[in-house]
């Protein structure tokens, strides 16, 4: 009991520290380029939190319900693009745009999930991949000049409230990212611990047995798919605000694979593991790119320099090593250490 209280206290202190971070004019050498309260660092941390939340939403459907969806990028991208189009093309206010996005974010995974879930396992993975690919094609085709095609869609300075624009207001965006991660975590925690959440885990272990018990796995899987898609779109909105625009790379099949890497990196089937995976991935992806431009690496012979300057190569290899030797992910490493 004492231990639990201690954990809660530590969590509260940690949460407070995260909230107050934009006021900390501290430089952590090696970890971040500028001081903690500099816009660059806050933006990076904000993105890390958004990807932590996104990895969590993928873990709900993949880790907790056992559905290997290869189309999760689609719902994230829906959050990004619907909001961006509503703001920049239809000139709605932020609140109206969020309303439109919420409707799409609910209906899209509900309808596509209802179709995809009629098949299982690998065919399911394939249909979700196909729908995501269709979405990606749509974005790249730039229909009616809505999505901006390959160029992406930048939010002009006139479409957002003043408090969300400009380098000096990066702290606000940072807090949005923190709030998003916290609320996604809370909803995710509540969902997987609710009675339907327990059924999801039952489906992951043995779907037929759940059906024999008189429950309808299809309905539960659809609920998991829809909730996770909806929350992913929420992460997409925060991503859009932090980036100040939409880029089509997040719609590609490669991006879904990256999500898979994040979740496996952190540990499948634990919420906090997925969050850590998402944060670590985004941090490494960003920092490795910076490191590759550092003079220390630029002087190395090409055989070593070229692989090191490709963040995705380093992350891909790290991923392979994890899958081969540490299937529980980073979360499993922590758990193993704490049991000992």
């Amino acid at each position, binding site marked *: 009991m004492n231990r639990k209280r201690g954990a809660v206290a530590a969590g509260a202190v940690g949460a407070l520290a995260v909230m107050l971070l934009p006021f900390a004019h501290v430089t952590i050498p090696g970890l971040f380029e500028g001081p903690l309260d500099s816009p660059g660092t806050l933006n990076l941390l904000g993105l890390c939190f958004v990807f932590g939340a996104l990895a969590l939403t993928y873990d709900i459907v993949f880790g907790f319900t056992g559905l*290997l969806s290869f189309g999760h990028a689609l719902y994230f991208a829906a959050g990004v693009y619907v909001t961006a189009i509503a703001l920049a093309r239809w000139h709605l206010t932020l609140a109206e745009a969020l309303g439109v996005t919420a409707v799409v974010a609910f209906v899209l995974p509900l309808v596509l999930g209802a*179709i995809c879930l*009629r*098949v*299982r*396992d*690998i*065919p399911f*993975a*394939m*249909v979700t*991949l*196909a*729908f995501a*690919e*269709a979405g990606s*094609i*749509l974005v*790249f*085709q730039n229909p009616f000049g809505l999505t901006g095609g390959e160029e992406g869609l930048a939010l002009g300075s006139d479409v957002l409230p003043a408090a969300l624009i400009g380098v000096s207001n990066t702290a606000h965006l940072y807090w949005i990212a923190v709030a998003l991660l916290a609320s996604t975590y809370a909803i995710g925690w509540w969902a997987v611990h609710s009675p339907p959440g327990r059924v999801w885990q039952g489906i992951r272990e043995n779907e037929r047995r759940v059906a024999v018990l008189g429950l309808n796995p299809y309905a539960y899987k659809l609920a998991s798919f829809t909730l996770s898609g909806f929350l992913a779109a929420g992460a997409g909105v925060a991503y859009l605000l932090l980036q100040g625009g939409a880029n089509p790379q997040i719609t590609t*099949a*490669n991006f879904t*694979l*990256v999500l*898979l*890497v994040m979740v*496996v990196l952190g540990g499948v089937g634990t919420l906090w593991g997925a969050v850590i995976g998402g944060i670590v991935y985004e941090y490494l992806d960003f920092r490795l790119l910076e490191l590759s431009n550092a003079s220390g690496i630029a002087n190395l012979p090409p055989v070593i320099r*070229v*692989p090191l*300057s*490709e*963040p*995705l*190569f*380093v*992350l*891909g*290899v790290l*991923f*392979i090593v994890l*899958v*081969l030797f540490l*299937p529980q992910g980073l979360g499993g490493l922590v758990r193993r250490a704490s049991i000992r």
Partner: protein
Amino acid sequence: MNTFVLLFVTGLGLGALYFLVAAGLSLIWGLMRVLNFAHGAFFTVASYAGYYAATAMPEGSPWLQWFAGLAAATIAGGVFAILTEIFLIRPLYSRPLGQILVTVGLAISTLALVEGAFGSDPRQVPLPDQMIATTKLFGAAIPNTRFVVIVLAIAVLAALLLFLHRTRYGLIVRAGVENRAMVSALGIDVGRAFMLVFAIGGMAAGLAGFLGATYYGTIDPSRGTAMLISAFIVVVIGGLGSIGGSALAAVIVGLLQQFLNFYAAAGTGDFAVVLLLAVVLLTRPGGLLGEGST
């Protein structure tokens, strides 16, 4: 009429490329239940191997260059696939999900490495003049490369069917697709068959890598991924594990893409293929020529 014939042959050529990539995917899935995301990486690495072999040959003899490229790409694809099977797939036989994940990691890291090493700009592949030249067919001028790709794909299809239906190892592979546990229970080393299908699949993907270079005239790091997604769609429409189904679906997908992308707006063809996949899966979950429903 001219445009129709041109689109038809071009679509067939595209289908031929899809088939070469899909055949290996389908065999690997059928026998080993491994969804090989690294298949696009085999394609890409082989296309660069082929490019370097072709440019290493003396410039004056384009046919020598072309055949050297073709051979190098096929061998590179096969070797890469065998190494993948030995070092990444084999240690994970007891963890099917781990096998899929490890191929995802390999695909991501290989693509990044190729991009880092060779840049993302397309590179021109040397081709013999006779191949770039066109042949009149029903009034349409069709580049000879299309015929080369189609003929070679048909040859691979015939060779694969011969191998599967006329040789002892083919029998083992077919039996393994039907029931893997039974085959190993009969005292047959299924592990060797695994390596064999990986080698065949890798060589077919490698061949496709250089034929893709022949078809498009250039190579770049990202085409492998696009091929992989189309090949996935082809494999699922045709029926996982069925070579004939893959061939049929590859032709349908290639033609559909070409015609719709031309007659309707660009991109419609790609979209229609995805819809076709959804319709096929929902009405015949096992694919057109697949075994029952999965």
